[in-house]
């Protein structure tokens, strides 16, 4: 019996959370349309600078390493089976553009930017700063989430482009120095078609938009004191990362159907 009530409670809880998440999303879009009424001037630029400043090195380092590892593993396998490295660069570029670049950058952004936003807004929630905003007739979503949303959208795209370039470039160097692959042959964009670039763009923008919404939602839901902030930050990391993976799957599968399997 308690088991059934437990399930019931968690279903109701999940339903309420989904509604709240949806309201944050709608509220952000509405705030975007309404424009700047309550926010200080230059807040979006400030947030963009903040996100870029905090995440650039992180994205470059993590995506750089994983780019080297992926190329290394791919070349290792090719050496064992076919020994033909002529297509490794062009295939790798296609994969980086259509999947690995945006998705791994998205996971890293969920970790860095998402956790940062949730920690910040969560701290404001438990110290009643959110209520203080509301007392001045300011909608917290307008004031806090909208600028972070726009900033994450723009900077997310920028960081994804940089991260993917680093991922590919360091992959090329790995192939060159560990397996003697010709760099010229590696930098071969012939497999990258406009549809791959479109997928890249759709993925980067969806992740950049989803991460601040999920993180802001987690921050606004924080309760209690330090445990609440810890909970919000944790939930933002896991929620953001998981959202990236699920969106990646949905976008990739949709692209596959839209192109009739010709990717």
């Amino acid at each position: 019996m308690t088991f059934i009530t437990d399930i019931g409670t968690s279903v109701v809880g999940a339903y309420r959370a989904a509604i709240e998440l949806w309201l944050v999303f709608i509220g952000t879009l509405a705030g975007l349309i309404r424009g700047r009424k309550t926010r200080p001037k230059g807040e979006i630029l400030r947030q963009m600078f903040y996100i870029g400043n905090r995440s650039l090195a992180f994205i470059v380092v993590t995506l750089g390493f994983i780019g080297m590892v992926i190329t290394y593993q791919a070349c290792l396998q090719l050496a064992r089976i076919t020994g033909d490295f002529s297509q490794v660069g062009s295939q790798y570029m296609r994969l980086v553009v259509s999947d690995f670049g945006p998705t791994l950058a998205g996971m890293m952004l969920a970790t860095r930017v998402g956790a940062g936003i949730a920690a910040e807004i969560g701290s404001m929630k438990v110290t009643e700063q959110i209520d203080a905003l509301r007392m001045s007739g300011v909608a917290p979503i307008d004031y806090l989430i909208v600028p972070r949303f726009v900033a994450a959208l723009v900077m997310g795209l920028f960081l994804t482009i940089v991260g993917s370039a680093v991922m590919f470039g360091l992959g090329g160097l790995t192939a060159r120095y560990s397996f003697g692959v010709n760099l010229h042959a590696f930098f071969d964009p012939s497999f990258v078609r406009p549809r791959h670039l479109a997928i890249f763009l759709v993925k980067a923008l969806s992740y950049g938009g989803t991460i601040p919404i999920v993180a802001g939602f987690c921050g606004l839901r924080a309760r209690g004191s330090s445990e609440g902030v810890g909970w919000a930050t944790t939930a933002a990391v896991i929620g953001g990362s998981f959202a990236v993976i699920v969106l990646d799957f949905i976008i990739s599968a949709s692209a596959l159907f839209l192109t009739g399997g010709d990717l």
Partner: protein
Amino acid sequence: MIAALGAAVLELTRQVGGIVVLGGKVLRALIPPRIDGRELVKNLHKMGNRSVPIVVLTAFFAGGLMMLQSGPFVKKFGATALAGWGAGYAVLREIGPILIALMFSGRVGANNTAELSTMTVTEQLDGLRALAIDPIRFLVVPRVLAMIVMLVALTVIGDAVALLGATIVAHFMLDIEWATMFHSFADNLQPYDFLHGVAKSFAFGGAIAMTSCYFGVTVKGGAVGVGRAVNAAVVAAAVSIMLLDFLLTYLTG
């Protein structure tokens, strides 16, 4: 600019040093191995409980994704016998261990930091010290061991689920027969591919455990500090995972 860079480098050095020192203390506490068994079991249970659903889902999607990426290419060349090769190899060696470790870090590592840092800011660690209980031995060591064991176990489970995800995607979205996929896995994947990934997850587990405990016990400044500590811990864990992945891939081929 240079001063800021210098400060950042100093801060990084301080953190890496702190993590290494904490690692040393954990190792010393393990010789001779006097571990609080109850605390260890409690943590294993809690961490496993917390992370299994998210890891299983992540692994499933990751396997499916790898299939979605390699599938069209395999089909274009009519090489369906190789369908399981690319996806399976990528899942077992790289994508599986890395994605699972990242999700584990977000779920268990971050939670652990939140818990430890809340205990730290509410002076519970000092309370333990006042009772002559070593917080490292009592709180940190069981958590480190539990996280390593749990991540390895989850990677083994996750690998299986990811291959299942790849097979299901191959069947329903790419019209590749079940049997073809199974044969393809059996013919192209070697036990070493699996062991390579699991070995890495062992190291990832250690890295996540050390970073999450370090930022938990060194937190300063109330609720705001807790948020920052969790953020710093997941970021440090992600960097460590990528760095270790790179080093281990080169070392073990």
